[in-house]
């Protein structure tokens, strides 16, 4: 039987090339992200860094590890998904051949072993490519982590020989796993099917699709219903899980919507060209090829769902943080200065009032349960409790801000208090600039999206640094004051809306960059899978094209029919992908709105339009090229060689 596998492999290399490619890219992604993760986990601050620097760099590496963890998870999922659907498709295309082998006496088990054997051979080939491709991909992750500030510029991703075993295991395992389900179904192909003229359409909406589809739908609904606290890295992780669960649900249930979409588009085409047979033909073809349509649409669902959903979800978080910042500050001007300006501001006639604060890095062991004693870096704001509330809206849950007048005190956000399992009156160990402080918690304030999670008395932040002043002025003297402060070369001055806008823009850019770093390569992978599926779906139909041409259609007319069908695939993929994206964004919106206290919802329409256009271009281009290639031979020689 191995001989048969190898013959099949050699003969079908064109079709199998797509399957190999999916494994190659998947393995490269998983291997590279895994190496980056391990490199970040073992990296430390460079020698000679100061206490705060060490804290910040170490904390950045912790973030890098979480980030790469997400990339590993996402890449693994998408690899399994794409390889599984590619192999399933490849097997479905061979039903006729497999039925023939059943007719000649191959048992169910032998069919399964044949297919798994092939898959393992493909897995080995694909993995070898993936191991090589993984090297430049790791370089991409290295640069990205440094650019995002999650790694020191010295950061290196070292090759580790054990990863070869992981890659081989993953590549071959995923291939074998992907062919297992398809193989089991193929084993049950009735031998009789080899004798029927038409290729038996095995039921597309099989039991496993129903089970997976309904379970995943239930999971997505449950995840949407539980209003999770969206904070930091967990927010992204939750968004990704939600998005993936919806993608699984929708792709499993895709065969249910294909006929409806095909019907509508067929009607439209008929309305546009009432005389042409195209509309009827297209609609009928798509209904007939539900599996083909669903499979080709699946990677589009992944691309649209992941890219629009995850980046859109992150945009909601950014929008929430922006709204929060805008509504929490009550001032007219913001001044940042390395020297104290208190005397000048106190005496200036146009200054109605001001507050001064300074951002410092505080190290806190916020994960007591892991017992590592590792400190996480938090942004803390050192404030004057008497003036801070005049320019910042703070919602005090328990205790009082005034408690910060005392020495060695601290105010925590509800989020951090919850993590530390501490409340007013307890103490917290906080490291500031290499010195450990035991601070008494005097108040807990409501959590916000963007922090701060820690307020400290100004006295604890005596180090030289940038002081931030929030000023309230009468509008009459504002421009005069603005000019005066601008002329001091120690200060930057900004109107408060400009300052919040700039701060929010910077945060949004960083958020987007992080999300892009997480999804970009996986999305490119899925985009390649679109081309792959489209090509496979087209080549499958050489016979059919030849018959159409024998009935009098020109190559151009065949192409038109196929492109119209591609349009339906695109609509199905966009519809389901859009639904997955919307679900993910809605999930983020629910959580963010809960934290901010009002409805926050943004939909990234330009991004969505760009992603869908790109998918359309890939799909239609690949379909055109492969249709042209698949109709190159004279139709009679294709039909005559009815295999």
């Amino acid at each position: 039987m191995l001989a048969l596998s190898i013959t099949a492999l050699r003969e079908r290399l064109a079709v199998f090339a797509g399957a190999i490619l999916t494994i190659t890219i998947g393995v490269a992604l998983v291997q590279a992200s895994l190496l980056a993760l391990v490199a970040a986990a073992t990296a430390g601050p460079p020698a000679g860094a100061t206490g705060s620097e060490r804290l910040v760099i170490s904390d950045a590496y912790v973030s890098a590890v979480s980030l790469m963890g997400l990339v590993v998870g996402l890449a693994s999922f998408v690899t399994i998904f794409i390889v599984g659907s590619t192999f399933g498709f490849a097997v479905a295309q061979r039903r006729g051949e497999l039925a023939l082998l059943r007719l000649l006496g191959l048992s169910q088990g032998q069919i399964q072993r044949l297919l798994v054997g092939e898959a393992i051979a493909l897995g080995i080939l694909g993995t070898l490519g993936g191991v090589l491709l993984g090297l430049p991909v790791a370089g991409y992750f290295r640069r990205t982590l440094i650019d995002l500030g999650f790694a020191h510029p010295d950061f290196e991703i070292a090759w580790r020989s054990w990863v070869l075993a992981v890659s081989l295991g993953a590549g071959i395992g995923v291939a074998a796993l992907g062919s297992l389900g398809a193989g089991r179904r193929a084993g049950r192909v009735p031998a009789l099917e080899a004798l029927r003229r038409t290729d038996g359409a095995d039921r597309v909406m099989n039991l496993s699709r129903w089970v997976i589809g309904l379970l995943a739908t239930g999971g997505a609904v449950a995840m949407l219903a539980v209003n999770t606290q969206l904070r930091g890295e967990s927010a992204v992780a939750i968004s990704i899980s939600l998005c993936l669960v919806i993608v699984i649900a929708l792709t499993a249930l895709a065969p249910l919507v294909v006929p409806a979409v095909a019907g509508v588009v067929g009607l439209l085409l008929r309305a546009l060209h009432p005389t042409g047979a195209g509309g009827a033909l297209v609609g009928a073809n798509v209904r007939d090829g539900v599996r083909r349509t669903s499979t080709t649409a699946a990677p589009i669902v992944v691309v649209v769902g992941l890219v629009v959903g995850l980046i859109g979800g992150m945009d909601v978080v950014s929008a929430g943080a922006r709204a929060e910042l805008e509504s929490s500050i009550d001032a007219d001007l913001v001044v940042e200065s390395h020297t104290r300006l208190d005397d000048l501001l106190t005496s200036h006639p146009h200054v109605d009032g001001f507050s001064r604060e300074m951002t410092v890095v505080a190290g806190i062991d916020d994960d007591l349960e892991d017992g590592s004693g590792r400190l996480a870096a938090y942004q803390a704001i050192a404030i004057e409790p008497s003036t801070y509330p005049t320019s910042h809206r703070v919602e005090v849950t328990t205790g009082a801000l005034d408690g910060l007048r005392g020495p060695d005190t601290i105010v925590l956000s509800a989020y951090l208090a919850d993590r530390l399992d501490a409340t007013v009156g307890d103490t917290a160990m906080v490291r500031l600039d290499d010195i450990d402080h035991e601070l008494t918690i005097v108040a807990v304030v409501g959590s916000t999206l963007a922090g701060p999670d820690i307020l400290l008395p100004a006295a604890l932040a005596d180090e030289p640094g940038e002081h931030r002043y929030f000023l309230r002025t009468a509008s009459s003297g504002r421009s005069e004051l603005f000019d005066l402060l601008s002329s001091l070369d120690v200060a930057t001055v900004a109107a408060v809306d400009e300052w919040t806008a700039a701060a929010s823009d910077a945060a949004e850019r960083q958020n987007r960059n992080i999300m892009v770093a997480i999804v970009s390569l996986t999305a490119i992978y899925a985009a390649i899978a679109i081309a792959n599926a489209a090509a496979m779906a087209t080549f499958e139909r050489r016979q059919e094209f030849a018959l159409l041409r024998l009935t009098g259609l020109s190559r151009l007319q065949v192409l038109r029919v196929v492109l119209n069908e591609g349009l339906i695939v695109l609509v199905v993929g966009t519809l389901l992908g859009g639904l997955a994206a919307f679900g993910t964004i809605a999930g983020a919106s629910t959580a963010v709105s809960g934290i901010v206290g009002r409805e926050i919802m943004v939909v990234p329409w330009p991004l969505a339009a760009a992603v869908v256009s790109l998918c359309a271009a890939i799909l239609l281009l690949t379909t055109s090229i492969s249709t042209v290639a698949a109709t190159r031979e004279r139709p009679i020689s294709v039909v005559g060689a009815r295999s």
Partner: protein
Amino acid sequence: MASTEAIGGQRSTVHPPGVPTQDVALRLEHVSRHYGSGDTLVVALDDLSLTLHRGSWTAVMGPSGSGKSTLLHCAGGLERPDAGQVWLGDRNLATATDRELTALRRRDVGFIFQNLNLVASLTAAQNVALPLRVAGQPPARQAVRQVLADVGLADRGRHRPRELSGGQQQRVAIARAIITRPAVLLADEPTGALDSITAREVLALLRSRVAESGQTIVMVTHDPVAAAAADHVVFLSDGRLVDDLQRPTASVVAARLAQLGG
């Protein structure tokens, strides 16, 4: 028992009475098979009984949709009857497991069909050797060459199906069906797509299988000339056995067929 008069009546045998049962290659007993339900109910086989003895060649004729293919599929264990029994030798196919049916296809039954797919990626010789490989036997070059020579394709072993004419492809399919020397050969319109000269060659080939290897052949055909090559002909209509002929001639077959409206 073999009466040929009552059209629409049921018969139990088509061979002369008194033949010992160990000479029976294939027996269908009260076999029924229907498709669909309610308005779309189609009775493809209606309480059909038929006994075929070893080394016989039977042609099955009847109008399109009369159940000929279904009869063949049930006889080969490709379809399970809804009622009745199918005995191949001493095994009842109606109750056999998938594993048993698989083993049976490997050794005991060969299929030849009009549109039987050859594997496009394999050469003629590889296609012929496929059943041996499937059975886990070493592909015996000599045997493959011999069978290909038997079907007149000695020099075409290295050609792929697309490089062969329809008749040649059909002969490759026949070679593939006979290489394992199955006791029963089931053929559905094996000459349907062939010109008359090639058809005659194929029929001669089948005759030699019966004569030399004692194989039992059941052949569905529309062609009275092809049917006349068999030992006897049975006629189906609406899933029932309605007539049979011993030692048929083409003209008699054509006349009977005309009576049935086929």
